[in-house]
Every structure is written in structure tokens, then in C-alpha cells.
């Protein structure tokens, strides 16, 4: 099947005076139609920069220096600003992390949902409003007809995130990018937001790129998981595969740091020692090597390539280079 989104060797650097911050350095991944893909990594590993590249909203002084982003047979990096604008919201939409900030404080929320319809379809004001109320009802906002006239601050955090999801679903997009949509919500609400995203996939067939540093939520909804570290993909595999057979030491560390359910309680969770490297001054070899328990000499000297260990399971680690094919 033709992938819906295909990112090839994407490099996005921030040029700050004499130093170059390599936020995203040679990232490649694919999303199939209707697939939910998790993009996992700690803060500062380039997750957000990568999606800003996909939407072509990379703030200055950031620049995409290399790579291709194919969406629906179009290279997004070659489109005109107006063509790109028509793709945002219509074909690729976004659910942002902080719902309160993502909603305009002085405009009724229904109007904000309707606005996406007005920007991308030929709907009349009335039709757009009715569609907005319908969407708000579908995302689980009680008494949507009445509450569409309320302002953002009159809703709880979970309800605000529902409204943001309603705006993201407004034009039946092929791809929804969810940038840590459950951060700051309590677990029961997290669960509801996740099931809302799953429902969106079921009903509209949208693919979802789910970005998070919370491994637990990612595992619960994603078909496939991509692990990023210091601006590059270190491992990528189907969820089950990555849980049962993690290959990269970093992935292993992440999985070991999830508190286990049942069994004997542990005093301390095993943590990965050290800090991610400074993206302005990256180590010449494997970027994880300084923190890696299995690091050998070649790891510090040479940069490993992303190799296919088994079909669909990619890993960037010297331990697996010989076992390729």
C-alpha cells in the first residue's frame, strides 16, 4: 500500500550565529492510511521540530536543509505557501498539547470550530455552525448546542481538549498530528481523549501521528512506534514487537522505566543514567553511546546506520549490524 505520509532523510537545523543546532538530523518514517504511529522521545529530541517541518511551520532561525516529505503524492516541501495552507487543517490537522492556549479566549468555542469549515470548505456560516455543534456533540460535549456559545475558560481541561479535537476533525483530515494531547490531564480524562482519537480513526479512517514522551499512553493506542533520540530515529517497529523484543539499549531503558503492574513492588525503577547530548555539540559516534551500558569503542567513533533487523523492525545500533537481512 502507498504510504500516506513519507518522510525521507529529513534534516532541520537551527542556525544561531556561529553554532548549528541539529534538532532533526536524518529522520525517515512512514505512515500508512488509517495507521496510528507513535513518535516517542524525551523533551528536546526533535519530535516537535519534525512535525513543524511536516506542516512547514518551522520558526526562524530553523531551516529544513535536506530531505523530502511526501504526502498524498505531493512533496510538501515544494508546494507554494497557498497550496500548503490548503493542506493544513483540511488534509493534515493538529491537536496541540495545551488546549487552553490553543483556543482563542474572546471568541465562543463553537465559532472557532466553525471557522475551520469556513476556511476550507464552501459551507455557509450557518452550515459551518451546525457542523461545529454536531462535531462538539460527537466529541462528547454535553448540551453542545448551548455550550458552543460559551468561551474557552468556561470549560474544564478535558472539555477544552475535546473542543480542540473537534476542530481537528472538522474537515475529515487524512492525517491528524496529536502533539502530546493528554499532557496535563488526569488519567481518566487521558483515557477518554485516547478513545476519542481511536473513534476518529474508526469513523473517518484518519491516520494519526501521536507524539508523546509518555510511553504508557503511546503503547495503548499505537500500531507502530518510532523512538527518537537526539534528532534521529533509533528504533522503529510495530508496538507488540517493540515491547516484546526491544533492540536498541535506549528503547530497553524506556521500557524498563515503566512501572510494572503486579509482581513484587520495586524500590526504584531502573533509570537511564546521564543526559541527552547537547544538540549543538553532538558526539561523533553513536549519540546514545555516552549513556549506553553496552558501548564499545566503535560506538564512540562511528555513527551507526538505521538497519532493518527483521521486516518492519528498524534499529540504529552496531550490535545488530551483522544480523541484517
Amino acid at each position, binding site marked *: 500500500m502507498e504510504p500516506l505520509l513519507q518522510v525521507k532523510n529529513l534534516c532541520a537545523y537551527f542556525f544561531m550565529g556561529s553554532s548549528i543546532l541539529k534538532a532533526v538530523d536524518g529522520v525517515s518514517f512512514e505512515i500508512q492510511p488509517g495507521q496510528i504511529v507513535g513518535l516517542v522521545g524525551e523533551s528536546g529530541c526533535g519530535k516537535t521540530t519534525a512535525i513543524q517541518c511536516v506542516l512547514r511551520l518551522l520558526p526562524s532561525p530553523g531551516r529544513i536543509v535536506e530531505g523530502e516529505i511526501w504526502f498524498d503524492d505531493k512533496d510538501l516541501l515544494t508546494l507554494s505557501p497557498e497550496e500548503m495552507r490548503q493542506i493544513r*487543517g483540511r488534509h493534515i*490537522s493538529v491537536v496541540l498539547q495545551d488546549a487552553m492556549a*490553543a483556543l482563542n479566549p474572546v471568541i465562543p468555542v463553537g465559532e472557532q470550530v466553525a471557522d475551520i469549515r469556513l476556511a476550507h470548505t464552501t459551507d455557509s456560516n450557518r452550515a459551518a455552525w451546525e457542523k461545529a455543534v454536531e462535531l462538539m456533540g460527537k466529541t462528547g460535549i454535553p448540551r453542545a448546542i448551548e455550550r458552543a456559545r460559551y468561551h474557552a475558560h468556561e470549560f474544564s481541561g478535558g472539555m477544552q481538549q475535546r473542543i480542540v479535537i473537534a476542530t481537528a476533525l472538522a474537515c475529515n483530515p487524512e492525517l491528524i498530528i496529536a502533539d502530546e494531547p493528554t499532557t496535563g490531564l488526569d488519567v481518566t480524562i487521558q483515557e477518554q481523549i485516547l478513545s476519542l482519537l481511536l473513534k476518529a480513526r474508526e469513523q473517518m479512517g484518519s491516520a494519526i501521528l501521536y507524539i508523546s514522551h509518555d510511553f504508557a499512553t503511546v503503547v495503548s493506542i499505537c500500531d507502530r512506534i518510532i523512538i527518537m533520540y537526539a534528532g534521529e530515529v533509533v528504533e522503529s517497529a510495530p508496538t507488540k514487537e517493540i515491547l516484546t523484543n526491544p533492540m536498541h539499549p535506549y528503547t530497553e531503558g524506556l521500557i524498563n522505566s515503566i512501572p510494572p503492574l503486579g509482581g513484587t513492588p520495586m524500590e526504584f525503577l531502573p533509570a537511564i543514567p546521564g543526559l541527552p547530548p547537547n544538540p549543538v555539540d553532538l558526539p561523533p559516534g553513536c549519540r546514545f553511546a555516552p549513556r549506553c551500558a553496552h558501548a564499545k569503542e566503535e560506538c564512540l567513533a562511528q555513527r551507526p546506520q538505521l538497519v532493518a533487523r527483521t521486516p518492519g523492525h528498524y534499529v540504529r545500533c552496531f550490535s545488530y549490524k551483522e544480523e541484517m537481512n
Partner: protein
Amino acid sequence: MELIRRLRTNTLAFVGAIAIVIILLMAILAPVITPHDPNEVNTADRFLPPGSEGYMLGTDLLGRDVLSRIILGSRVSLLVAGVGVGMAMVIGVTFGVIAAFWAGWFEIIVMQIADVLYAVPTLMIALGVVGLFGRSVNAVMFAIGVAYSPLFARVCHSAVVSIRELGFVEASRAMGASHLRILWKDVMPNILPLIMVQVTVSLSWAILQEAGLGFLGMSVAPPTPSWGTMLNEGREYFYSAPTMPLFTGLMVLIAVFSFNLLGDGLRDILDPRAWERLR
């Protein structure tokens, strides 16, 4: 309707709004409600004190009815203030918002010009305009429009600079809103309260300014009354007949005060985040 309902919960602003409506009605209905012809000279009845028969607020140096002249004078004062501030708002908001939204050389040039204009006292600008075009209402309106526009540009510019970085603007951009849509739906509603407050406060300043320019003999030519020119006429006889400039000055005070009250209250009234308390 919602606005009026909320206005009523804010007593001071409501009083200000009522007073403004009365003053506006007074200006509109001036020819009907003046007890005398405001320009009718009656040398026999000069400097009558307030309370004289037929002249509630007395007469001036030419025996004209002070009350009628105050009523008619409101027209020039409000017209000059309204048109001048309206002009300042249109120029200032347009340039301020555009400058903030499309940062770069345009922003630098516009804001530098605004700063230079802002540094020149309004009176100097008015003197220049009146010197160029002669003494007329239009010149005064133009002077106020030019002199006040940097205020609006500055207020809008700084507000938009902070708004353009907020999450909901970024969200709109990520959802494919065009620049115009972002300006109209995200930026404008958020700076509207600021503009409204700036308008009401500027209106009160402009009324004072017109009075000041009239006092210096730069506003309308006699015999057309304006509050400023009346103050100027009354000044010479202040010791023998103090009531005429007193009542005129009182009228200026009431108008300025009303606009200030409304402006103060509008800031709270226009903020949806403050509505909850009123529900």
C-alpha cells in the same frame, strides 16, 4: 443587548454612558431645544447673571443666551473630538496592527514615525495645521487625527506583538487559516477592548484639546460657538462675570468625565473572562 445588560452591572460606566447619550442628544437636537437663538445679539441684556428672567445661565458680553450657546457649542466640540479620534483610530490601528503582524523593515519605519509624531506636542501639530490651512473645524479635526494616531499605533502594535506569539494564533496557522483570517478572527477580537478604551479616553482628551485650541483662538471662527471659544470669550471678563466660563468649563468637565468613566468600565465589560462573575 448582552453588552447593555453587562453595562448596567457596572454602575460608574453606566452613569458615564447615560451622560454621553444625553450630551449626544443635546448636540443632535440643539436647534430644537435651545431656548434662544444662540447667535442673537441683544446689547441691552449684556452680562446678565444666571437665573435672570428668560436666561437660565445668564448672558455673555453681547447679550447672547449662555445656555443656548453651550447647547449649540456641544456640536463643534463633539464633532471635532469624534471625527478627530475616529481618524486617529483608523490610521493608528491600521498601521499598528500591520506593522506588528508583518514584522521587518515596515514595522521599524512605521513605529519610528509614530515615535517621532508622538514626541511632538499636539498643540505644535495643531499650530502647524492651522497655520497651513487656516482657522477651521476641519483643521482642528485633522490636527487631532494626526496627533492621536501614534497612540493607537503604539497600543495596537504592542498588543499584537504579544498576541501573535500565543498558542491560538499558532493553532490557527497550523489549521490552515490565512493571514487575513488570523488577523480578523484571532487578533482583532483580542485587541478590540483595548481600542474601545483608547477611543473613549482619547475622546475626553480631544474635547479638552478642542477647548484648548478654541481658547487660543484656533478653533471655529465666531460667531459659531464651541466650548473652547466660549471659554476664550469669557476669559477677558472673568472677574466681572465669572459664571459664563464657569458653566462652560463645567460642561467640558462633565463630558470629559463621562467618557473617562465609560472607558474605565468598558475594559472590564468587554473581557469575556470577567463575565463569569456577572452571570
